[in-house]
């Protein structure tokens, strides 16, 4: 029923090294991107944009970042919230102090600053491993959170500690409606995903995976751990920093350090675990899952017609969310991406499995 790759022969090295060697895969991705950029704006309303599509896309970028570090390079990190904050405040300060800067440059600057901070906090990973490293990365989370709350310069001496961004425009076109924001975020997501895909399937990605699978063995066959781990930290923090800046500028508009607290770190970690460690597809699926589930849980009581106090709803939401994560891990510990792969494999043979 589903497509097969029968009859598609690779006759050149280019064809062999293509991202999607199978024509149907290639076309479905192209169709998907075309649909997302041309089809969605035809019917999407403001709610769909601001509550679903934009958060999913931005958090996907953060999830890709963490996935590079944790899924591909095997370094468990709980500091993503902190790095998102670095991106957000770096972008804020650049936009504030040099208002003429192109918005693309602002986001790049956010990524680069997060990258530098990530390199700094990545240094201990050369010595510390596993859960020790995971807890050590919490040091960056709490330190950065504290720094943005306390150092007045970062927030431009705002008395409340909360900052807001002004008008955002790209080459003279203001990005003010949810539709425009969506297209902008979508473009950035596509570019960054393409870059990540090429990184992880190339030399650097193989280096990361070798370190993940067994760092000592990787070192023996000539991979420099310093190089591999720090490059993973740098690339990962860059992505997370860009995501943080996008989140702050295009999703929140005004924010305080609490928007990037430790729960944000856990949220991003949930995404990659539920989506699937070490897959880019998983980052998207995980982000969609984590954004959609609370929306769904929030709506559930009103659909069922049960009246509940808001405190009760939030407690039940906690419970259901926790239970769902546990259930999910039991059902498929390798995440949604693995489910998708299994489903595809089954559909290849369906309905004649023999």
């Amino acid at each position, binding site marked *: 029923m589903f497509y097969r790759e029968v009859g598609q022969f690779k006759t050149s090295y280019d064809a062999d090294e293509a991202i999607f060697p199978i024509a149907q895969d290639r076309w479905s991705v192209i169709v998907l991107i075309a649909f997302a950029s041309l089809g969605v704006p035809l019917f999407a309303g403001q709610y769909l944009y601001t509550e679903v599509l934009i958060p999913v896309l931005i958090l996907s970028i953060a999830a890709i970042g963490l996935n590079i570090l*944790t899924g591909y390079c095997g370094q*468990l990190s709980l500091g993503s919230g902190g790095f998102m904050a670095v991106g957000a405040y770096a972008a804020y300060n650049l936009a504030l102090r040099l208002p003429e800067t192109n918005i693309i440059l602002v986001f790049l600057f956010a990524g680069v600053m997060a990258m530098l901070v990530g390199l700094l906090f990545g240094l*201990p990973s050369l*010595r*510390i*491993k*596993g*859960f*020790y490293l*995971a*807890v*050590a990365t*919490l*040091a960056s989370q*709490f*330190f950065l*959170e*504290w720094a943005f*709350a*306390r*150092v*007045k*310069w970062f927030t431009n001496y705002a008395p409340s*500690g909360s900052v807001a961004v002004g008008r955002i425009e790209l080459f003279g076109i203001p990005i003010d409606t949810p539709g425009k924001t969506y297209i902008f975020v979508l473009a950035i997501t596509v570019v960054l995903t393409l870059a990540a895909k090429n990184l992880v399937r190339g030399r650097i990605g193989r280096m990361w995976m070798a370190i993940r699978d*067994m760092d*000592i*063995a990787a070192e*023996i066959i000539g991979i420099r751990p310093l190089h591999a781990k720090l490059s993973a930290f740098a690339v990962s923090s860059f992505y997370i920093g860009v995501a943080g800046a996008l989140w702050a500028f295009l999703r929140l508009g005004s924010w305080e350090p609490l928007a990037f607290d*430790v729960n944000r770190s*856990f949220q991003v*970690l*949930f995404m990659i*675990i539920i989506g699937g*460690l070490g897959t880019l597809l998983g980052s998207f699926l995980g982000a969609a899952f984590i954004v959609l589930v609370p929306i769904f849980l929030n709506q559930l009581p009103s659909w069922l017609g049960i009246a509940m106090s808001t*405190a*009760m709803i939030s*407690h*039940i*939401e*906690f*419970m*259901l*969310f*926790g*239970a*769902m*994560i*546990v259930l999910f*891990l*039991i059902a498929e*510990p390798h995440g949604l991406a693995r489910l998708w792969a299994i489903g595809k494999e089954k559909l290849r043979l369906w309905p004649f499995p023999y």
Partner: protein
Amino acid sequence: MLGPVLETLIGGLMTGVLYSLVALGFVLIFKASGVFNFAQGAMVLFAALSLARLSEFMPLVLAFAFSVLIMIALAYAIEFLVLRHLVNQEGIILFMATLGIAYFLEGFGQTLWGSDIYKIGLGLPTNPIFILESVFPGGLLIDPVELIAAIICAVMVLVLAVFFQVTRVGRALRAVADDHQAAQSVGIPLNQIWLMVWAVSGLVALVAGMMWGAKLGVQFSLSLIALKALPVLILGGLTSIPGAIVGGLIIGAGEKLAEVLLAPVLIRTFDLAGGGIENWFAYVLALAFLLVRPQGLFGERIIERV
């Protein structure tokens, strides 16, 4: 100058003991099952909530006994519903599962017991005690709750040490901690051992919840104490019970001293809006220790082979 510093130091050490109480639960589970149990903080909250609400309509001793039963039932439920299905999964998957359990327990505890601030009356003297009045003017101030917590903690560590060294179950626990497969092959029932460990760390959580609850009142923020116990844990070493105690003392004393001595300097130099360096100082301290000893102070040396 020495007097106030010493007072801060003692206060810090006492708080450190309370941190160790929480860290102890982590260590027990990590040692026996290799699970990095993030739900320990939620268990502390849950235990404290049960105790506080039950003690509202029964004597404290009876409430304590019921809470013990509840924590054992909880351990059974976690083992039966979650861990059993995740045997042989990677550490990170189990860690995520405990995060899920933590969310669930936080929601469940507050749905079941309510989400206000509750009090646990231990009938302890609340007036601060002054010691060494002859040495320092005004003496040194000590909170009796913290003093009692320290004593309870010491007793608990002793009991646990004896339990691990002497009893049959303790020996089985140590065997499981050493090597799951080998332990199973000599006939140690893994599931029962895990149940036992979760129950024991549930009890540790109950005691920790009781002491913290008596100090701060029982409320949601109690589950955040887990985040304070984490640096204690990695500083002392994930697998060491003495490490949890020593780590707690170092972190407790370190962060209080830092708040008094370091924070004013930082505020002056960097023009900060207030101190509050307690939030990250423990982590940075632990990180600095780890750079010298990557397995913590007393953790087992990690031997890696290709």
